């Protein structure tokens, strides 16, 4: 694998086994990146062809046509349109499957008319039962369509060696199918000369898609706009006519030897659907699936999480034991390693969530969830496709917001993105966990459920209801632009392919660790600095000042050390900020120490527990949750003389964390996705006000 001989783009309809083929060709040699200008994930892999050569393969989003209906589909034409881009392929592999062959051939003719060398791959689809798969004569198909056709099975890998060999040979010249529609004849030459295009259909694509082509200047766009206006072109109709014409040609060429598959009644898919999309059973099954998913995420993930926690504290202890004591060691252990620990800690939950999401997608169940949820979601101004972002939001809002790109309606997508951070993400779990442990007894309810578990579930429900209610209000305020389209395929059920599930988990975890992880580690270092240094000379003089206090006379060295640490924290930058905001948060039941945690949490809420640990124990020997909980329990409110963390305070704090947008990564990803600061700013203002007012209400009612 030394020399790259060819760059290949993988294109095909959704549900054709394109990703399976990609995984077969590249294995774990994959890298996720971004397409320039858009945030659609670009998955690139290396495929070994011979001992010394490899092909670079780009997996493009599944699409039915070069004319995009959603943001991720835009990428397909964009990457085929710009020869000067580093992603421009030498060759396209077009994945076809036998049941919907004509639909795939339609896309093939579009790609081929761009002058792009195409190799077609006919994938044998794993269908559970019920379809008579039409026999396709692949040699005849190759002759008629003018492209080489390779028969493969993307599950078993059958036929892939022959395909790899074929990739090394010289591509054929293409037969033009629909290069120059008559109605555009008058303006194609002008476009071709202006942009130096050597192909008619490429000029046609410029006419239809110039608004989405990032490499065109505003002048260029204005030029095309004027041409379209001058000639009075109805672009929608031209595209519809092109589609009809292409299907006609396909029927002429292959109609004699390929017939449409007859539809069989009462297939296994139909039988499963009659239960899964049933009025009652459908929703019950969906609830059960959610329940099992969350149970698994909480119960199974806790074992590796405990191990990681212990591993990290061992690592910190070990490093402290051999590095010389001093600010640098503290920076490494309390800043850097603690931060890395905070990232690694979430890996088990993210891996488990994406295992379930990927299993549901692979099996064909996810499409049914959208099907049965569309009517419900539409009532609150969302869309059946909003279910996936909302569900994924329970793990982490960042990938969830990115997954909203499949929603083709702009407003539905904007509202989904706006409310997704209200879903309780996994970063809130540690906050909820310690506060619940603090004030909710672990008794059983109805002999079945643990009360702590019930409260936790209540917090999730609270987030979900807030998301739904906010969506409803927003959809009433903002008027719907354009029609929302919900046409989608319900694929046949099939057994998930474990390799695809595994690769999906690895990719998602990698993205989290390297994207969100960077920010979390950086923040934890900043935090360490804010908590370790302060204005004036309080920090340096802390030990002499505390030692001189009358109540510290005769105190042990350990007590003295703790008192010094507490004094330093109070006078650090973090403590100063906390005191500054105390008057504003006192009505919510919070003191300056909680204020410090709130401020630091505005960057990322998972730092709450770490900050609490720092506040109550800088310098203490062990920082595990148990002892932090005890320390928090022992905290006295000087005004009442009772415990600081009463039920009212703890619930007020939990509600605050449920609603506040305390996550820089989310703000950043919303900005990237919406390409405007209006949305993330509105989101921060809205969620902060909601959090403040709800906390105020909770504290004033329960205190």
């Amino acid at each position, binding site marked *: 694998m030394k020399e790259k001989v060819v760059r290949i783009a993988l294109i095909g309809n959704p549900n054709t086994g394109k990703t399976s083929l990609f995984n077969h060709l590249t294995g774990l040699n994959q890298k996720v990146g971004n397409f320039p200008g858009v945030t659609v994930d670009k998955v690139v892999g290396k495929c070994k062809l011979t001992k010394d050569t490899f092909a670079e393969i780009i997996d493009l989003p599944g699409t*039915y046509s070069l004319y995009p209906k959603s943001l991720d589909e835009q990428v397909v034409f964009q990457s085929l349109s710009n020869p000067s881009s580093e992603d421009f392929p030498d060759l396209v592999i077009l994945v076809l499957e036998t049941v919907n062959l004509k639909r795939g051939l339609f896309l093939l003719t579009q790609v081929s008319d761009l002058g792009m060398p195409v190799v077609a791959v006919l994938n044998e689809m794993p269908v559970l039962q019920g379809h008579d798969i039409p026999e396709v004569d692949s040699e005849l198909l190759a002759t008629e369509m003018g492209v080489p056709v390779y028969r493969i099975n993307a599950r078993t890998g059958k036929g892939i060696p022959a395909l790899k060999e074929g990739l090394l040979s010289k591509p054929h010249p293409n037969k033009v199918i629909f290069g120059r529609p008559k109605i555009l004849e008058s303006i194609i030459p002008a476009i071709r000369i202006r942009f130096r295009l050597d192909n008619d259909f490429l000029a046609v694509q410029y006419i239809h898609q110039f608004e989405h082509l990032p490499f065109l200047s505003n002048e260029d766009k204005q030029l095309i706009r004027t041409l379209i206006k001058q000639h009075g072109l109805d672009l929608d109709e031209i595209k519809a006519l092109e589609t*009809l014409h292409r299907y006609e040609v396909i029927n002429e060429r292959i109609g004699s030897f390929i017939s*449409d598959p007859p*539809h069989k009644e009462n297939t296994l898919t139909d039988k499963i659907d*009659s239960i899964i*999309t049933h009025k009652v059973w459908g929703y019950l099954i969906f609830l059960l699936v959610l329940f099992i998913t969350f149970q698994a995420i909480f119960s199974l993930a806790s074992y590796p999480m405990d191990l990681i926690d212990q591993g990290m504290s061992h690592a910190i202890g070990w490093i402290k034991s051999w590095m010389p004591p001093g600010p640098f060691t503290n920076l490494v252990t309390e800043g850097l390693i603690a931060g890395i620990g905070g990232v690694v800690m979430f890996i088990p939950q993210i891996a488990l969530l994406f295992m379930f999401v990927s299993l549901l997608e692979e099996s064909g169940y996810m499409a049914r969830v959208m*099907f049965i949820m569309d009517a419900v979601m539409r009532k609150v101004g969302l869309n059946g496709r909003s279910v996936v972002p909302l569900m994924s939001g329970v793990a982490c809002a960042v990938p969830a917001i990115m997954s909203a790109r499949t929603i083709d309606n702009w407003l539905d997508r904007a509202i989904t993105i706006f409310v997704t951070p209200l879903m309780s993400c996994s970063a809130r779990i540690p906050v909820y966990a310690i506060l619940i442990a603090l004030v909710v007894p672990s008794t059983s309810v109805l002999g079945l459920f643990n009360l702590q578990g019930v409260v936790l579930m209540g917090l999730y429900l609270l987030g979900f209801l807030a998301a739904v209610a906010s969506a409803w209000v927003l959809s009433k305020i903002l008027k719907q632009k354009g029609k929302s*389209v*919900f046409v989608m395929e*319900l694929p046949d059920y099939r057994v998930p392919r474990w390799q695809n599930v595994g690769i999906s988990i690895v990719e998602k975890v990698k993205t989290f660790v390297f994207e969100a992880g960077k920010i979390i580690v950086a923040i934890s270092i900043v935090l360490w600095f804010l908590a370790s240094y302060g204005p004036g000379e309080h920090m340096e003089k802390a030990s002499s000042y505390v030692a001189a206090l009358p109540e510290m006379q005769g105190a042990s060295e350990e007590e003295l050390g703790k008192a010094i640490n507490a004094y330093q924290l109070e006078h650090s930058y973090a403590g100063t900020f906390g005191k500054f905001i105390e008057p504003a948060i006192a009505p919510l039941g919070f003191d300056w120490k909680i204020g410090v945690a709130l401020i630091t949490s505005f960057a990322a809420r998972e730092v709450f527990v770490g900050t609490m640990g720092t506040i109550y124990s800088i310098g203490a020997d062990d920082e595990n949750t148990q002892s932090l909980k005890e320390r928090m329990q022992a905290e006295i409110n000087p005004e009442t003389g009772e415990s600081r963390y009463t039920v009212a305070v703890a619930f007020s704090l939990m509600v605050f964390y449920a609603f506040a947008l305390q996550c820089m990564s989310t703000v950043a990803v919303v900005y990237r996705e919406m390409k405007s600061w209006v949305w993330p700013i509105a989101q921060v203002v809205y969620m902060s006000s909601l959090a403040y007012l709800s906390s105020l209400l909770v504290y004033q009612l329960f205190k």
Partner: protein
Amino acid sequence: MPDPKTVADLKIGEAGEIAGFKDTKLSLKLLEMGCLPGSKVKMNSEAPFGDPISICIGGSHLSMRRAEAAIIIIK
């Protein structure tokens, strides 16, 4: 002139043949997915609350909202 019959008017199990579309803009996606004039379409099922619906066309099942089905004219 009475409104032409559309896919949205089909009862479950009923079939028809696509004759055309009422809305060019919305028809593009349907055309690209293989809902072509002349092809046979069958109402397969409805989601709970009657919307969206699923239809059989060619070898596959498509789901769409009733509003979208109502632009597909059948004969």
